[in-house]
């Protein structure tokens, strides 16, 4: 039996496995707990929560596309107080490692949310979702604006202090992803989550109108995987010391390994769980085997391995 150190670290936090849910694709864990023990994965990234109850966008909210899907949920959720009262105790009881994802409409809302999380025990990290595409006004997608991104992360960092790692979730729908990534890291992000969904649209040819109630939606699934691999590769090349949670269409151990080789310290699984509730468990097992097969003795050795200098290169 070959031994493999499968653990990873995001900022100051250690995780026994590099496999996570993607925010918005696992609710707060109860639904998946019917299919596998939540403590067996690296951690759960909970659905992005806002200050108040939010009903989300009108239906239809979903359209399947080739090797993917569009969603237009619009951050439906119970609000931070109900989330902290009901979901955190449940997840703690399950011994799950918890990354809480937060979303706000203003810089102040993010800071308010961070303040509520500061004293909560049992949280491993905070994901700051500044890139949800399902908002009324595209101008509100902070991650499309380097300055707004910086201000959100700076506000959360000042509020939370130095204790909990902050992971900034970014959008691929930008011209220069590296400069936005650099900006949020300078403002205090310990890690990055790459990528959020890609803005898309389906038109129903019977009604001859956009299929989704919200008209546009976020594209996810294997259709966007090469975009995610490219994004992780580019950002890791520029910021090799910043841990990245890689996501976008990962459905197999092979896909997870690809993301690790591109530079991700961990992977999040989203749409694949819709098609297979036990996807995270099978991806985790396949990834372990693929690492062992390639002679790695630790996951960390494989992170960014695709960036190594070619044999004979002088670099």
């Amino acid at each position, binding site marked *: 039996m070959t031994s493999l150190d499968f653990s990873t670290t995001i900022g100051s936090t250690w995780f026994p496995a590099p496999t996570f849910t993607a925010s918005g694709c696992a609710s707060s864990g109860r639904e998946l707990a019917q299919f596998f023990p939540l403590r067996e994965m690296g951690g759960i990234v909970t659905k992005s929560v806002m200050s108040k109850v939010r009903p989300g966008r009108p239906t239809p909210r979903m359209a399947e596309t080739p*090797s993917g899907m569009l969603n237009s949920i619009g951050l439906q959720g119970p609000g931070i107080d109900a989330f902290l009262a009901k979901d955190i105790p449940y997840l703690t009881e399950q011994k799950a490692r918890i990354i809480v994802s937060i979303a706000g409409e203003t810089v102040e809302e993010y800071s308010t949310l961070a303040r509520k999380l500061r004293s909560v025990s049992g949280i491993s990290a905070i994901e700051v979702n500044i890139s949800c595409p399902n908002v009324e006004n595209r101008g509100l997608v902070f991650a499309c604006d380097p300055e707004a991104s910086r201000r959100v992360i700076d506000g959360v960092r000042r509020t939370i202090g130095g204790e909990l790692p902050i992971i900034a979730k970014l959008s691929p729908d930008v011209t220069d992803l590296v400069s936005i990534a650099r900006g949020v890291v300078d403002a205090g992000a310990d890690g990055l989550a790459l990528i959020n969904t890609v803005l898309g649209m389906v038109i129903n040819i019977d009604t001859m109108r956009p299929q989704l109630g919200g008209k546009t939606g976020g594209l996810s699934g294997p259709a966007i995987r090469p975009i995610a691999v490219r994004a992780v590769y580019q950002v890791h090349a520029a910021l090799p010391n910043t841990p990245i949670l890689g996501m976008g269409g990962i459905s197999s151990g092979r896909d997870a390994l690809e993301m690790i080789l591109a530079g991700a310290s961990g992977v999040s699984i989203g749409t694949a769980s819709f098609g297979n509730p036990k996807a995270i468990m099978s991806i985790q097992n396949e990834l372990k085997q693929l690492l062992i097969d390639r002679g790695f003795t630790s996951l960390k050795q494989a992170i960014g391995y695709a960036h190594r200098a070619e044999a004979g290169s002088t670099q």
Partner: protein
Amino acid sequence: MSQINKSAKQILAPVVSNKRVGQYHQIILNIGDLAAVCKPGNFVAISVGGDTSKMVLRRAFAISRVSNSSTFGGTMELIVAPHGQGSKWLCAQQEGVMIDIVAPLGTAFGIPTEPVPVLLVGGGYGSAPLFGLAEVLNARGCRVDMLLGASTASKIYAPMEGKRAVNSMRIYTEDGSMGQAGRVTDPIPEIIKDLDIAVIYSCGPMAMLSAITKISDQFGVVHQCAVEESMACGIGICMTCVLPVENEDGSISNLRSCIDGPVMDGSKVQWSQVGTQL
């Protein structure tokens, strides 16, 4: 909160038979012990297209009936119309093929504790789960009457053996090609009065469920309806299949039809607000 889908399992279930019945396919899967925990109203989420498929999402189908007594062990019957790519794939699967299923999912029809008269109303192939329900209600001692409706004869699903558990079955088609011409909701007020109906169970398109709710509210009859909303996961994690439903405190929330449904209290669903911004 109680455990979600506590009986659900993901298994590979072999196709026992696949027969064409008019416009539909009757597909029987061997599901072993899971048959014992499936209740009328529950649904199954099925992976379609095989391992290399570009279809990444499961398809949800109402479980029309389960059986424990057959020579195959526990079986599940599905009535599937080959409409889209996923259902066409499923209808093309022959005996012996292994199907990846997650079941049983969602809420079930509530069975009255007393043997009260009940009315079952089905629209199109939505009627399929009502036959399994009729058997359970019949066993409870309820008088069961059934109305089936569709736009035209070919869209009516009414198997011969389905009549065994019902006291009467009336069929309505909008074009008059089968049974009586008209809408399936037309005779409901008369039937409620004549038979002293206590509960209406329904399954079918949203417009029909909404129309039945108007009538059931007017007569103060309980209306348990099985809703159909497009779903990505079927297990409660994607949040796409929501419907506006009134809470106990009078407020309205978008509830998941996969977890809080498919069987819902018709009088609580805010039919006029479906597809609008809350």
